[in-house]
């Protein structure tokens, strides 16, 4: 079922929020106000938003090193996100995590994770909890094409399949793992084919088409809620920026490949779709939406900047829960 026009506009707003948030985050990273590393999700917004648009607040997701999009799509607070990037006390992790470790357990966002494939088992455990609770909650694992070659992916898929856990495994196949192309590391282009070995559905979807992603996710979520077990969804997509903002690592991706994918902009696509359908989005509305989004980002930056840094001694807190 297609989401309602309102819902679609909301999805558009979220996608644009992710993009604007990261444009700002990378600017401020290069400007020196954000530290460490920033991995941008720009170009892949349709995956996070398409999937999360099928979830309830108490459904859970887990993310990767490239986590801003998943946070925003799951409803995280931009102020606390930006404050975390700025290393402030008001950040989601009190300044302890930074870009790679934003989490909000209150909205079922179990965290970005700096270890490739590191979150897959964790969210599978959340899926087990959901099954034990028996309230129809589901858990979603986001991960990359690179992660699909790591052991924990396999172990988790197998357990989820064997125990019919309500988990949706969403592979964001952006064709590269850092500098290494998936063509070099996968004998088989389609990661979805791996589902076969576990007797679960493996679905391929255009990851730049938010409505297609939504559709595939909705089906998988329904299956999971019905107790029928996990689904592997492979979203074919592409990142626009380099692997990280951190260093000028070489980018071996061919110019023409990048160009082709830039033309598949998931946001422009949804805008065009809404515009093409009488009255669902006008140019003016779209401009206004973008202005609002930018205002939200501006506010978040303001919140971050006006928040204090944690006291150095706060480093000693939170080692253990008491």
């Amino acid at each position: 079922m297609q989401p309602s026009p309102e819902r679609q506009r909301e999805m558009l707003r979220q996608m644009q929020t992710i993009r604007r948030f990261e444009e700002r985050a990378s600017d401020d990273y290069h400007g020196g106000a954000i530290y460490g590393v920033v991995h941008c999700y720009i170009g892949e917004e349709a995956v996070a938003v398409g999937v999360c648009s099928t979830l309830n607040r108490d459904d859970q997701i887990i993310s990767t090193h490239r986590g801003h999009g998943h946070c925003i799509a799951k409803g995280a607070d931009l102020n606390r996100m930006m404050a975390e990037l700025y290393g402030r006390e008001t950040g989601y992790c009190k300044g302890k995590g930074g870009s790679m470790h934003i989490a909000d357990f209150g909205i079922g966002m179990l965290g970005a994770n700096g270890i490739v494939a590191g979150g897959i088992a964790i969210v599978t455990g959340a899926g087990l909890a959901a099954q034990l609770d028996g309230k129809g909650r589901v858990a979603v694992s986001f991960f990359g094409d690179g992660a699909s070659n790591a052991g924990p992916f396999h172990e988790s898929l197998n357990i989820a399949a064997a125990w019919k856990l309500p988990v949706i495994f969403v592979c964001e196949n952006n064709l590269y793992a850092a500098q290494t192309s998936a063509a070099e590391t996968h004998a088989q282009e389609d990661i979805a084919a791996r589902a076969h070995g576990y007797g679960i559905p493996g679905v391929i979807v255009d990851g730049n088409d938010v409505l297609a992603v939504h559709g595939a996710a909705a089906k998988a979520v329904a299956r999971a809620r019905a107790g029928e077990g996990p689904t592997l969804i492979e979203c074919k997509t592409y990142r626009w920026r380099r692997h990280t903002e951190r260093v000028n690592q070489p980018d071996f991706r061919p110019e023409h490949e990048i160009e082709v994918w830039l033309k598949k902009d998931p946001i422009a696509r949804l805008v065009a779709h809404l515009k093409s359908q009488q009255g669902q989005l006008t140019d003016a509305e779209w401009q206004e939406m973008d202005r609002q989004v930018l205002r939200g980002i501006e506010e978040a930056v303001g919140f971050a900047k006006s928040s204090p840094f944690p006291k150095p001694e706060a480093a000693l807190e939170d080692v253990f829960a008491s």
Partner: protein
Amino acid sequence: MREITYAQASLEAFAEEMRRDPKVFHMSTDAPQPLVKEFGPTRVRATPIAESALTGMAIGAAGSGYRPIVDWRMVTFCFVAMDQIVNQAAKIHYMFGGQAKFPILYRASVGGGTRLAAQHSQSPYSMFMNLAGLKMILPSTPYDLKGLLKSAIRDDNPVIAFEATRLFGTKGMVPEEDYTLPLGKADIKREGKDITIVALAWAVHESLAAAEALAAEGISVEVIDPRTLVPMDVATIRASVRKTGRLLVADEAGPTCGAAAEISALATEDPATFACLRGPVKRLCGLQVPIPYSPGMEDFVFPDRQKIAAAVRELVRPKS
């Protein structure tokens, strides 16, 4: 009080805590039958051989309101799960700013003496102690084990319970009624005044036997069992060393960067304790080798009561 074995002590602790709290459940590659019988296969799960996934799943389940117990079985099987231990379980509470709790019990048997060769005869607790964010117990008696396991299950942090394979069959008195022992409290297993032995697990029993023999020679030995490795009860250890002026650390693990090195450093870096030292601090550990299979070689590797007694004599009455 009743007499039960070390192995029974764990099972009792698990069963009692599972009765007490429906959020406690158990996962391991082979499900323990007595627990399956009482609690059923949903709460006592037999899993695929995928310790990495189990270790991680416990984190996700804990972050969602459960209190999982993951039995890695022999400690050697947890190395496939090391990333989940080091990078997730130990750090996740901290790096997310303390926003969620992860009450998990990981359990593993440790130690040699079983003729199982290098891979299956390991005592690598110090590898985990080096990490910040995990608590750890290593009890030496059924009483300590049961009481500490129950505390560990109730603790809101990931705790690793190391249990000494060599002690599984040993017996000890344990109360009928519910009791717990606090994490982080050492136990003085024997009082003495000439030398302190801080001993771990099996070495506690060997040290007590050595102490008995040495008493006949007029050497009075104090034997301290830390019981908990993290947090370590450094106050009790230092107080004892200040009293006796001498320290031997006995542990079947290899010495290099081991728990024995830590205990040694904790004693010698405290100015007040250092000032009381009457001689060098000795580690009596397993040899720094993988553990060999053949009995003669294996026994040669480990510190036993004779070697402990000899080391004490040398410290108390140095030859030169």
